[in-house]
């Protein structure tokens, strides 16, 4: 067991996979000489050289598309988007080529690419740099979507992503990069679609993922201390595939659900979860499913307003829990 930051854990996964498989290539803007805009790939150029760690021009449609094409011939590119917000520039390549090429070819082509980078608000970079497109990506069959909340999961899921033969969209978070956690030593992978019960409880289930797991856990501890409530927190880890069974089992135990997500509520991941839970566990519910998400507007710049009001935070989660329980 080692203590690694989320950033270091991802770097460890990338490094181990580069050493394991000669077809793994890391590519993106500033990943090599600059050591990564968020230092995820720091030191990797020096260690693995320019064939494996490749700086690209600012040209997302071009290099993401190129990576998809290379993956069809067996290369395993791990493409960094400096921000997932820039996915829109490469959207055609992702949704028409990566997601569809297997289907349109009748299953003849595999596309083992990973596209990774941070997808979050909360850093006061305004509406163009704060997108959280996990719902948009998961809407496209053919893509897998991964949203780790901690260092250990990030490492294990990244290794799984690189070995996966389908295109994997790996969404990180700049506000998690510096957070340290215990990471098991060795070649540990985690299967996609296995949620983690981050906190056990009996009074209410919070279904969440990514950085919202931290807010949910903080809220749960405060609700325990202040009101003696036992809140269960489920960290989904991946959006597609989705561990519906773990969610439904928890609902059968607690009968009350709050979904916490850094998503605007309209057509969000939470919309889908709420629909699924009421479809499959209607009789288990003792209260309407509520959601705590992003306030429905483009990301506001004003720093305290974004942090305290627009995004989920422990206070908003507590308010949400109390409303479900009211």
């Amino acid at each position: 067991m080692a203590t690694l930051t989320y950033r270091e854990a991802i770097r460890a996964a990338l490094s181990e996979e580069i050493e394991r498989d000669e077809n793994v290539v890391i590519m993106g803007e500033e990943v090599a000489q600059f050591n990564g805009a968020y230092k995820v790939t720091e030191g990797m150029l020096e260690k693995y050289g320019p064939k494996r760690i490749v700086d690209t021009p600012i040209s997302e449609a071009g290099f993401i598309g190129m990576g998809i094409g290379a993956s069809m011939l067996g290369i395993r590119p791990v493409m960094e988007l400096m921000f997932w917000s820039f996915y829109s520039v490469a959207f055609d390549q992702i949704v028409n080529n990566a997601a569809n090429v297997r289907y349109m070819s009748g299953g003849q082509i595999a596309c083992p690419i990973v596209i990774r980078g941070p997808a979050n608000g909360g850093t006061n970079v305004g509406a163009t740099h704060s997108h959280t497109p996990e719902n948009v990506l998961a809407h496209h069959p053919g893509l897998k979507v991964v949203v780790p909340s901690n260092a250990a999961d990030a490492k294990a899921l990244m290794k799984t992503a690189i070995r996966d033969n389908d295109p994997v969209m790996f969404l990180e978070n700049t506000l998690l990069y510096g957070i340290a956690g215990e990471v098991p030593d060795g070649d540990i992978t985690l299967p996609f679609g296995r949620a983690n019960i981050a906190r056990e409880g009996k009074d209410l289930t919070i279904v969440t993922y990514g950085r919202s797991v931290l807010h949910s856990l903080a809220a749960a501890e405060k609700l325990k201390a202040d009101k003696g409530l036992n809140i269960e927190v489920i960290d989904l880890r991946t959006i597609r595939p989705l561990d519906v069974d773990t969610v439904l089992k928890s609902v059968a135990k607690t009968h009350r659900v709050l979904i916490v997500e850094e998503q605007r509520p309209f057509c969000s991941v939470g919309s889908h979860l709420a629909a699924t839970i009421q479809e499959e566990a209607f009789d288990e519910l003792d209260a309407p499913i509520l959601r705590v998400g992003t306030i429905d507007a483009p990301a506001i710049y004003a720093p305290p307003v974004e942090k305290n009001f627009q995004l989920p935070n422990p206070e908003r989660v507590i308010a949400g829990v109390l409303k479900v329980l009211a």
Partner: protein
Amino acid sequence: MSKKTSVPAENAATPPSVAVPSPHAKAPANAALNAEQKIELYRKMVRIRRFEERCLPVYNQGKIGGFLHLYIGQEAVAVGACSLMGKDDHVITVYRDHGHAIAVGMDTRALMAELYGKVTGCSKGKGGSMHYFAPDLNYWGGHGIVGGQIPLGTGLAYAVKYKGLKGAAMAFMGDGAVNQGAVHEAYNLAALWDLPVLFVIENNRYSMGTSQERSSAGQLGKRAEAYDMDWYQCGGHDIYEVRATLDEALQRAREQHKPAVVEIDTYRYRGHSVADPDKTYRDRKEIEDYRNTKDPIQLFQNQLLHEKVLTEALIAEIDAAARAEAERAVEFSEASPFPTADDIQKDVYWETDQPQRTSEGRIFFNSVK
């Protein structure tokens, strides 16, 4: 960087290669061909045309859905280009993809069945006319979004170079694609990283119903110069000229990892798709003039008669065989079943097509069926 003229016309004062003999017959790529290989080139062009001509009534009977973008008139480009492919060369193209599919050797029964949407189609009825693929033949589609395939073709070249192979990718596009951003991003990456890719513009003069003059500033191929790439321009009516030009460009790509743009002047006789009435943007005379003077099959037939490779009897035999092949493709398609409702969610993920899942949880999400 500059424009390359691969094979100088014998007499620059006369229009190149309209007349027999072709001034490109002695180019190394063509001089190396034996009679059998020349007949095969001719046969492939005829097979493409007869196949597509047979598609038309089937489409008009409503047996083919969606769009049907015919390649008739452009056959020498795909056949000439694909005839140069070695085992590590790859090809990718746009939705006008029937010609390339036959040129690389796909079975016309599977191609016709795909148009019918049948499970025996080359993509099991999941792709349709615009999405033919045969990775076993180094043919990577068949892509529906104008210019979207060009970064993919660049990625094929990247993979070939990464693996240390002496191969190249040919990424085809129409003249309408040259204004798409993805094309220019791919140009830059290919030139920046010395990737063995040829960007082949099949300039048939019209992006759907908009003429080149109305859509694109300047000479299309010349845009290569902005990226320090060499570029070629050649006629697409003379298969020898196509082969001579691409052979030189391919060798540079394979040996020196040099990308290039190759602009090939060609022409489509039919509308953008069969749904295009083709009455608003060009004169019938323009089509007739091209057909009468530059039809690629007629020209090559004349050339091979001149070379005494073809005989009238062989021409008739090849034509009859191509018609019969197209008919067999229709019969095969008619007799084939459609995919089932259960097939809809197959071939989506590599993982779910395997006997055992590698992930857990739910990967498909269904409403009430």
